[in-house]
C-alpha cells in the first residue's frame, strides 16, 4: 500500500471510488433501514416521552453528521492549502450541501421533538442557536463557491472562509453558551465518563442505544456515499469543461 496521496490523482480516485462507492452506498442503505426499522417498531416507548422519543433515530445522527461534515471540509481545505490537490478542494465543495441538509434535518426534527417535550418549536438555547449559525455558515460557504467563476480562485477563497469560519463557529458556540443557559439536554449518548465507568448521570438506555448506533453508522456511511458521488460529479464536470475549452481552441 503506497501513500494515501496517490489518490489525489483524479484518475486513481475515480477508479477506486468506482468500486468503493456502491459498497458504501449499499451498506448505508442497509444500516439506515435496519436501524430505523428496529428503532421505530422494535423498541418500547419511553416511559416519560412516549413514542416521540423515536425521532432520536433521525435527530442525533443528522446532528452528528452536520458537525462532522464541517470538520471534513476543514481538513479537505487544509489539504488543498498545503498540498494543492484538486480532489481535496472538490471534496470540500461536495460535502457542503450534504452538511447543510443534515443541519436542516437536525433543526427540523429537533423542532418536531421539542414541540411535545418542551411545549415550543424553538427556543434560543445555545445548542439550537449555534446550529442555526452553523446553517448560515454552510449557506455562505456554498454561495461563495457558486459566485466565483475561476475554479482555483474559488477553491482558495472558500478554503480561507472555511478556516476563518471554523474559528468563528467555535467562538459562537461559546458565545451563545455565555449568552443563555439552555433547555437542551447535555450529551447523553457518547460521553467520556461512560467508557471509564465513572458515569453516573442519566444516559440513553441500551434498549435505544443499539439501534441508535446502527442509525449513526448508517448516516455516516450515507454522508460518505453522497460526498463521494458529488466529488465524482465535480471531477466529471471539470473534465467536461476542459474538453469544451479544448474544442473551442481547436
Amino acid at each position, binding site marked *: 500500500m503506497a501513500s494515501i496521496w496517490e489518490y489525489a490523482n483524479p484518475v486513481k480516485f475515480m477508479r477506486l471510488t468506482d468500486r468503493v462507492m456502491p459498497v458504501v452506498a449499499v451498506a448505508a442503505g442497509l444500516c439506515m433501514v435496519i436501524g430505523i426499522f428496529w428503532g421505530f417498531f422494535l423498541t418500547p416507548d419511553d416511559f416519560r416521552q412516549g413514542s416521540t422519543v423515536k425521532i432520536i433515530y433521525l435527530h442525533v445522527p443528522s446532528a452528528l453528521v452536520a458537525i462532522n461534515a464541517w470538520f471534513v471540509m476543514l481538513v479537505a481545505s487544509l489539504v488543498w492549502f498545503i498540498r494543492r490537490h484538486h480532489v481535496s478542494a472538490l471534496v470540500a465543495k461536495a460535502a457542503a450541501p450534504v452538511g447543510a441538509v443534515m443541519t436542516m434535518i437536525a433543526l427540523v426534527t429537533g423542532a418536531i421533538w421539542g414541540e411535545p417535550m418542551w411545549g415550543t418549536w424553538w427556543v434560543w438555547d445555545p445548542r439550537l442557536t449555534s446550529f442555526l449559525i452553523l446553517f448560515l455558515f454552510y449557506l455562505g460557504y456554498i454561495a461563495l463557491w457558486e459566485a466565483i467563476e475561476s475554479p482555483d480562485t474559488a477553491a482558495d*477563497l472558500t478554503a*480561507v472562509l472555511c478556516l476563518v469560519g471554523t474559528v*468563528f463557529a467555535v*467562538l459562537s458556540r461559546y458565545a*451563545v453558551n*455565555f449568552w443563555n443557559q439552555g433547555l437542551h439536554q447535555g450529551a447523553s449518548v457518547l460521553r467520556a465518563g461512560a467508557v471509564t465507568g465513572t458515569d453516573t448521570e442519566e444516559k440513553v438506555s441500551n434498549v435505544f442505544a443499539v439501534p441508535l448506533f446502527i442509525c449513526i453508522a448508517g448516516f455516516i456511511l450515507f454522508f460518505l456515499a453522497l460526498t463521494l458521488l458529488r466529488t465524482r460529479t465535480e471531477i466529471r464536470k471539470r473534465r467536461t469543461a476542459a474538453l469544451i475549452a479544448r474544442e473551442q481552441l481547436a
Partner: protein
Amino acid sequence: MKALLLRDLKLSFRSGGGFGLGLAFFLIVAILVPFGVGPENDLLSKIAAGVLWLGALLACLLSLDRIFALDWEDGSLDLLATSPLPLEAVCAVKALAHWLTTGLPLTLAAPILGLLLSLPESGYVWLITSLLLGTPALSVIGTFGAALTVGIKRGGLLLSLLVLPLYVPTLIFGAEVARRGTEGLAVNGPLALLAGISLAVIAILPFVSALVLRINLR
C-alpha cells in the same frame, strides 16, 4: 499609510454620503423600533441597549462593500497591491478608515439615540464602552468579508450572508456588556471577552484579508 488613510477618509466624506449613510440608517432603526414594538417606556428601556447594538451592526454592514469596491473598479487596488506598502497594511488602513467613518460616529451618536429609546442612566457608560470596544472588530471582520467578495459582481448580498455569522460573537458579547451594565450587574466577563475578540481580530484578520486580496488579484 497616512496618505492612504487621508485619501480614504476624503473619499468617504465626499463621495455621496458613504459617511452619512450609516448614521442615517442607525437613526432610522432607532426611530422605527418604537413604532414596531409600541411606545411603552418600560419596554423600550429594557431593549434599548440591544436595539442600539443591532442598529450599529446593521449600519456597519451597509457600508462594507464600499471598502474595496471603488478601488477595484478603477484599478487603484492593483496599484496599491504593487506599491511598496505591504498589502496587510493596506487592509489595516482600510479597516481603520471604515471604523473612523462608521464605527466612531455611530458610537458618538448612540447616547443621543439612547435618549430617544429611554435608555436608563446607568446604561450610557457601558453602551459607549461596549460600542467603542466592539465596532473596531466589526470593521476588521467586514474588511475580510469585503476582500473575500471583491471580485464578484453584485457581491453585496453575498457579503452580508458571509459576514453575518462572523458578527455573532461580537454582537452577543457587546450587547451583553450593554445590557448587564444597564441593569447594574457585573460586566467583567463579557467585557474581557469582547476586548479579546477585538484585539484578536485586529491582530490576525488583516493578514488573512491581504491573503484573500492577493488570491482575488491573481
